[in-house]
């Protein structure tokens, strides 16, 4: 199980990073979202993996999983949503403002390529 989680984290990081390095806004947003998954699961896994031991206190139960990483990741998930929403709106605004969705630093007003509409 640990290997599955570790490899998933690695894979998500790889895919996220690759998309992050593309030259248009949308892949960057998707890449960031994937990287957020990887980071959140990474943090979560710091508390080690357990099955059927949720940190909900019950009579007679003594073994629980580590609740702290879960609390940290919970807020992280919500914050990453806020961040994703912000960059989505930023990219829309940039698109409306300069007429293309490049993030590779070409000057504003440079001839846009096929695929740029409006």
């Amino acid at each position, binding site marked *: *199980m640990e290997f599955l989680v570790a490899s998933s984290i690695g894979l998500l*990081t*790889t895919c996220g990073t690759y998309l992050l390095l593309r030259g248009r806004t949308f892949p960057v947003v998707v890449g960031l979202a994937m990287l957020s998954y990887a980071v959140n699961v990474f943090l979560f896994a710091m508390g080690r993996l357990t099955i059927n031991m949720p940190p*909900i206190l*019950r009579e007679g139960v003594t073994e629980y999983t580590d609740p702290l990483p879960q609390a940290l990741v919970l807020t992280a998930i919500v914050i990453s949503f806020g961040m994703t929403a912000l960059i989505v709106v930023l990219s*829309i605004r940039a698109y409306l403002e*300069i007429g293309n969705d490049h993030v590779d*630093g070409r000057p504003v007003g440079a001839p846009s390529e096929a695929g740029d509409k409006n």
Partner: protein
Amino acid sequence: MSLTLIVLLPFIGAVLPAIMIRAGRNACATATGSVTLLALILLMAKAPAVIAGEVFQVSYSWLPELGLNVTFFLDGLGLLFATLILGIGLLIIIYARFYLSKNDPMGRFYVFLLLFQGAMVGIVLSDNILLLLIFWELTSLSSFLLIGYWKHLPEGRQGARMALAVTGAGGLAMIAGMLILGDIVGSYDLSVILQNADLIQASPMYLPALILILLGCFTKSAQFPFHFWLPHAMAAPTPVSAYLHSATMVKAGIFLMARMWPVLSGTPEWFYIVATAGLVTMVVGAWIAIFKHDLKGLLAYSTVSHLGLVTMLLGFGTPMAAVAGVFHIINHATFKAALFMTAGIIDHETGTRDIRRFGGLLNLMPIAGTIGIISAASMAGVIPFNGFISKEMMLEEAWHTMWLDQNWIVPLLATVGALFSVAYSFRFIFHVWLGKPRDENLPHHPHDPPFGMWAPPAFLTVLVVLIGLFPATIAGPLVAATSGAVIGGELPDYYLSLWHGLTPALGMSVIALIGGALLLMRHGGLMSATANLSRPDAKSMFDCAIAKSVALSRLVSDNLHNGSLQRYLAIMVIGAIGIGLSGFYAQPDFQSGSRELLEVSPPAAIGWLLLVVTSVAAVFMHHNRLLTLLLLGVVGLIVSLGFIYLSAPDLALTQISVEVVTVILMLLALNILPKETPKESMPGRKMRDGIVSIAAGLGVGGAIWAIMTRDLPNSISSYHLANSKIEGGGTNVVNVILVDFRGFDTFGEIIVLGIAALSIFALIETVTQGEAAKRLANWVVDRRRSPNRHPMMMVVATRVMLPLSLMVGVYIFLRGHNEPGGGFIAGLVVSVALVMQYMASGFGWTQNRMKVNYHGMIGLGVIAAAITGVSAWVAGLPFLSSGFVHVHLPIVGEFELASAMGFDLGVFLTVVGAVMLALAKLSQVERMAEHVDINAEPMDHDPSAPVATPEKEA
């Protein structure tokens, strides 16, 4: 205590002029003056004790770990300088009231002045060298504001920038020097450092520390070759020049050399660096001053020259020279401040500062003329004024000084310097005040200024005369106390007096006076003879150096910061990989741990497989954006399932509801953004990015593998588990951590979320202006729309669902403290329920019925959380401590009502507000792009309408 108050008063008082200017200029000046006067009175109350030899000290811990403490001490040296700063400051404040014109913002001027004053007093009273450095930097900054006060003048701005660049750079060097010094001694307290002269001078780091500290002093005190900034700073209003260049700013370097004199002086290094720099500065400054036609330019270079004189005296390293230096500091401050103010009067009354246009002004302005002539005579060193006495002492010391075993160099150059000094002082007297008027057409007809303007320099001139006539009586005690503090030991045997008999110094003085007068007679010839000499222009050299460094930094930043996000991210990712690799190679024994691993169950394996397929597919098919989004949704779903499988029900609930909102958000975004990503990356670039991302993935995956295969060390979690029920009153430990144990974190996080939502609001609200508005106005919808904007089935279904889903939200919220759930999840669930309504029934229809202000909701949420936190104070507990009571309700049964619930309510409101605000704003852009009106009715489907095409709809 009152010592601290002396330093703080100008800072605190700096708000007064800004407020009082509304009450008029007199009120403003009076308020400013009373602040300084109060500080001066507090200081004077301590003066008798200090002159009697007492040292006041006061200390507060600030950052004791760094050796940085707020400690002040007042000894003779501090007293002298603080008196100069506050006393002359008071005179300048009065003078400036009359000098500044009605168009100058006076309130701002006094604010800057008081800030500067506070910083200067801070320097001279600091007992901690780190604190001193802070005040030192503050003087650089506040003097920048003062010099550039007339910000409409380019010379003012350039002069201010040059002063800041030079003194700021020196200040940086000095920080390094002071840190070395503190390191040698092991303490940053001046009183400790001053006791350790032998330790410091024996250290191999003595020379570097000395050079660095002197760099700071020389730049501040305008010593050759850093003297060039001072004349350019003359673009400031005259009160500023009078203050900065007579008594304060440029004296800060002198002060520090005097302060450090007991520990740094006495070595050959000190002598050759300091005395030589001072000697050269004295001669060069005086020589240039002779040829300046600008009144203030002449005074500026004479200031440079006199600072050189004092520096040289301190550089000699003998106690007697130190006494002479201290005495000259007093004398120079008095006559130079008076001279600057006189120059200001002339400028003010005639409208020009060009010496070539003056002559015979004494008849027109008798009072100002008398003041100017006496002060200038003192500057020349004419009997019986105070300048004469200290100059005699200087010449006497120079007579005894050997330089590289030559006994003639220093006396000769000192005499030459004095001679030049006589020449420019006499020029100020003869070419300005005496003789015949040379220009009848001065911009204004000169006359004496109002009382408030001549009284301050007149007061100083009275001091000039009195100190000259009765030096031992008037200045003796202060000189003794100050010199004692500088020397840090026994005072030498000296006698302050006009007449010392026929000494070599008197001979040198006479030579200087006669030579200077002769030189002035030849002034015209001298002017034309030197006019064609090429002189290095410090300003152009400085500008060139600045331009070069700007070009260099532009080169660096243009390459690093070229506007390409790709480049920044690549640098960041590669940098992170590099750091990881360096750690990996530092200890290259990567091994799996020995922790017992969980078995792989078939569902887990299937989930993993799905994740691999979808995320790889997302990368390879990312050009199709809609597909990518779907794949991303699948990944999120599997992550949520993973959470629930691995004992994290709260995370699973959060992740799945966030997933829904995110997908809606991105779909909305895709409505505007292009639907395809063009294939434009070069194969090489793809290869590079592929290698980089695989390296990143391997690193991260390897790290977490290594972590997961090892046991969890003892952590704070066991405390949380043990105390969740007892202290937090809840059995859902994750929720208790969020709202109680780490409530402050959560509080910060909901604020961040709120800020993100408000930024989104701001970004969209302003979309109706500029380029974006034009693009939106000309938008062509690029996809066929369904004719059925609001399908009936969906409308009906969501109406039925709404109460149910809201109920689920409330349920999840209420049980959150004990079972999986809580404010975050409930907020997301309720948002999804509301969004469904918006989607199904249309924005306008829903909005008309949802009379909720989402901004207000965010604010309300943060306030609710804050109030819950603050209410703990009522019970005398720290912020965000929670309490709970057991409540029994019929049907529901017994449950705990924790104050944390109020906090969770805040979280809930903020989340709902933020999510809804973001989505509502996004849909607003869509509507603008599609040019559709808000629908007033739901189910606005017209079955008889033909199938609409986008063009028709638009």
